[in-house]
């Protein structure tokens, strides 16, 4: 009997564990899982809310209407007056296909859903007025956004323009894009889902690319912080490290140059050596400080920019020194790096939604600028800033120069899986900011498989964005 009772207690403990697991799982589900699933188009509840609530509008920083709902109740139609222009930022809101991007992330605000909304809604029930969701004012500037879209034109790629001191995103365009209005969405859905250019992939936030020579900005910062790369190097256009040959663009030999000149001409030979000299710990440190291998908190989902190395040998260090190897970054991340240098070494958290405003124009929530990461000291940032200015004044980035304004920048021409087998498939990059002595605008431009250098293809686009950004500022 004793033995049996003891075993009954074992079963009781087992049973307690089962019940506890239910409670723990429910809490876990509610805390972590549910936000991810609730916006599914199969969840009819969200349309339930939509039928009784006038969905909020989305406006740019100056009040330009970017998305609004026409009609009332279940007859509501979501209108995107600028069609494809904001498709990769605002996304779509469709009964048939669900919600994406800001329409999904801010669904609760747009429909005014929160824990006490049933109580708050009593007034509307009594007065008979339809409930209305909150409006979003974005940090985007319609003029800049339109310009960016024009500049990309038919090329695939992304442009991100930010305010380096706050993290506000002024423009964010990804190509290819799509028309998010319901009728067009329905018409093109099947083609777009099956398309191999992936029009639903927002390049700016979720496209990952080798950073190419733009990564040399981070390598320079690390070198300055660790007393590496102080002397001069002899650049013969090509160098063999650990059995791997590393060439400059067109094997150009620059002779005796220091690190500033090396950055200006984007010497792979020099930066491969600096990478090796820095060593694994310093390289890994600067990547971590920049926020690689880490989620970037943002109003949209952002792919993690990866530094996917275990133990690194000299070949790996040399490859990372010139931004190749297995590095993977998003255009948003590179815009944040440029902003970080511009903002005296402090990377700000990027944001898209400036404020949430109630239908009666009461500001419910304003986003405050926050620090994302402290990349380098202000002194080192000032040095990197100057080095980046010489890229534009005397190096590969001349076509980013603006008369009367000091521009800092860095070009990049990134090899990728296609450029190895086909000619002219490199990605073209440019990151930069202006004015260099008091940075107001930072930019990252990426052209996918453009086959041209960053200096030729991406830098002129960046120049136009910076110029307009400054005049808007």
């Amino acid at each position, binding site marked *: 009997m004793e033995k049996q009772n003891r075993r009954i207690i074992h079963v009781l403990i087992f049973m307690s564990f089962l019940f506890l697991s239910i409670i723990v799982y*429910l809490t876990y589900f509610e805390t972590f899982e*549910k936000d991810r699933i609730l916006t599914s188009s199969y969840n009819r509840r969200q349309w339930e809310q939509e039928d009784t609530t006038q969905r909020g509008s989305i406006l740019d920083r100056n009040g330009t209407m970017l998305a609004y709902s026409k009609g009332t109740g279940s007859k509501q139609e979501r209108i995107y007056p600028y069609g494809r222009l904001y498709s990769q930022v605002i996304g779509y809101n469709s009964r048939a296909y669900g919600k994406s991007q800001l329409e999904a992330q801010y669904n609760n605000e747009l429909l005014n859903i929160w824990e006490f909304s049933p109580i708050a809604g009593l007034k509307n029930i009594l007065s008979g007025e339809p409930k209305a969701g909150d409006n979003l004012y974005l940090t985007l500037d319609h003029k800049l956004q339109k310009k960016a879209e024009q500049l990309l034109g038919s090329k695939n790629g992304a442009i991100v323009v930010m305010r380096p001191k706050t993290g506000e995103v002024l423009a964010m365009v990804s190509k290819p894009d799509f028309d998010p209005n319901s009728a067009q969405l329905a018409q093109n859905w099947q083609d777009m889902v099956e398309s191999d250019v992936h029009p639903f992939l927002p390049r700016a936030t979720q496209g990952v690319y080798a950073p190419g020579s733009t990564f040399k900005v981070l390598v320079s910062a690390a070198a300055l912080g660790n007393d590496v790369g102080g002397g001069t190097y002899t650049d013969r256009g090509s160098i063999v490290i650990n059995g791997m040959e590393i060439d400059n663009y067109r094997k150009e030999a620059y002779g005796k140059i220091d690190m500033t000149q090396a950055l200006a001409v984007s010497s792979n030979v020099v930066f491969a050596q600096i990478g090796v000299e820095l060593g694994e710990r310093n390289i890994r440190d600067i990547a971590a400080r920049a926020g690689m291998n880490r989620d970037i908190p943002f109003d949209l989902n952002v792919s993690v920019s990866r530094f996917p190395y275990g133990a690194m040998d000299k070949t790996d260090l040399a490859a990372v020194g010139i931004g190749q190897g297995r590095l993977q970054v998003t255009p948003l991340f590179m815009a944040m790096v440029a902003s970080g240098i511009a903002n005296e070494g402090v990377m700000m958290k990027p944001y898209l939604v400036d404020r949430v405003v109630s239908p009666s124009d009461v500001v419910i929530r304003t986003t405050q600028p926050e620090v994302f990461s402290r990349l380098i000291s202000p002194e080192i940032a000032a040095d990197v800033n100057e080095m980046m200015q010489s890229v534009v004044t005397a190096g590969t980035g001349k076509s980013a120069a603006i008369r009367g304004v000091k521009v800092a920048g860095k070009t990049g021409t990134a090899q990728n899986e296609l450029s190895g087998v086909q000619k002219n498939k490199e990605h073209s990059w440019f990151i930069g900011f202006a004015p260099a002595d008091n940075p107001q605008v930072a930019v990252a431009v990426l052209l996918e498989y453009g086959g041209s250098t960053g200096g030729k293809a991406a830098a002129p686009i960046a120049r136009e964005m910076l110029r307009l950004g400054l005049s808007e500022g």
Partner: protein
Amino acid sequence: MKAVGRVRPVYLIILVDAIGFGLLYFYKKPYDNYILLAGLAAILLITLGYLAIKLAKLGDGYLFLIAGMLSSIGIIMLYRLDRELGFKQIIWFAAGIIMFFISCLLFRALHIWERLVYCYPLASLLLFAVTLVFGRSIKGARNWILIGQFSVQPSEFIKILFVFFAAGFLSRYEGKLDEAGELRIGKLGIRPVFVLMGISFMHLGFMVVQQEWGTALMIFLVYFMLFYVFINKRIYLIINAVLAVMGGTAGALFVNHVRIRVDTWIDPWKDIAGKGYQITQSLFAIGAGGFFGTGLGLGRPDYIPEVETDFIFSAVCEEMGIFGGVAIVLLYFILTYRGFKIALSIKDQFMKILAFGITLIFGFQTFIIVGGVIKLIPLSGITLPFISYGGSSLLVSYISMGILQAISAGPSARRAVAETPSTGNAGPAISEVASSGSGDAGSIEEAADAKRAGSVAEAGESGGVSPSGEEES
């Protein structure tokens, strides 16, 4: 229990019912006065039942209250889902309470239960045969029979018959389960443990043929726990575990129904419009509720298929929140805990196993269906005891609860008296236990108990189980 003070648990139930039915009254126009009547009826039934248990000194004072609370929540939820179902459920609830007292009194009055060992599997077999021949298919599985205008689900009754059989068999062959030749079928001597296994697997087989995977799993778990507690030779436990793993794997691989359930458990989003529809709709509901729920009548639990029966827990979570759901899980946990306490303190082996088995049924049934609808384990449709809509389920739950109540009250006066003339008519099970002379403290104490006068014995026993004054201040 002094800490409870003047707030008796029964007041809490009255409060919950008053709030619940009061809210339902205001929920829909035109106001329905019958809802208030129904609420009053529920309160009255629970209070009267509780008083009856207290006055008749029928043992544990909590069992009935917990069942009453769960049924109240069930009725409120069903009423909110469908007025007609709510009314029917109240009638079933009243019938359930009547059956509770009938089974409680019958169980105490008659002393034939442990002698009927083989009648239980025969009854199960009969029920099974009737289902096969006259069965109606409802929702795919042929597991209903029509009696008049009622549809009855025999599997609900089979599970309780199985526990009776196991209790009778295990107590009859206590200590001799592994002795060859102890049990004779014709001239063939056979180890009782094999007969137990055979008949148990027969029950399991019934469920598999009727495709009641949830009930099959539950019966197996109960059976396995009985083996763990009451059979000393560990080899049999291992054999059963191996059989279970083999059977489970084979089922998951080769039986289409089981495989689909496992697949949709692993990834329901893959076929969200088809096989994953039920579980994803359930998850949407739980997610929509959040921690505090949308409020009674403000959610859309009607989007969930089979919400009145299998998925009622999701509906509760949507409208009463995770906190409501956790509260219900905790109520079941207290119920199981009380059941284990009764099983631990009872001396009579048959009663002990019976109490243990009934408690396990409540516990596992709750875990299987709640775990299923929240996607903690693969979904297999069974009812949530006391809450789900359905006469069969509710009646069987209350009958089982009545038996548990009877056991908690200790041996009745008549039983104690009847045992006084010693082995004469106390039934084979008890006499065998006593004569086996295993030095078991329980049987000696019981014999001593039996020699005392009836009322004294009762007071002594019930003091050990659950003092009737326990929750009085």
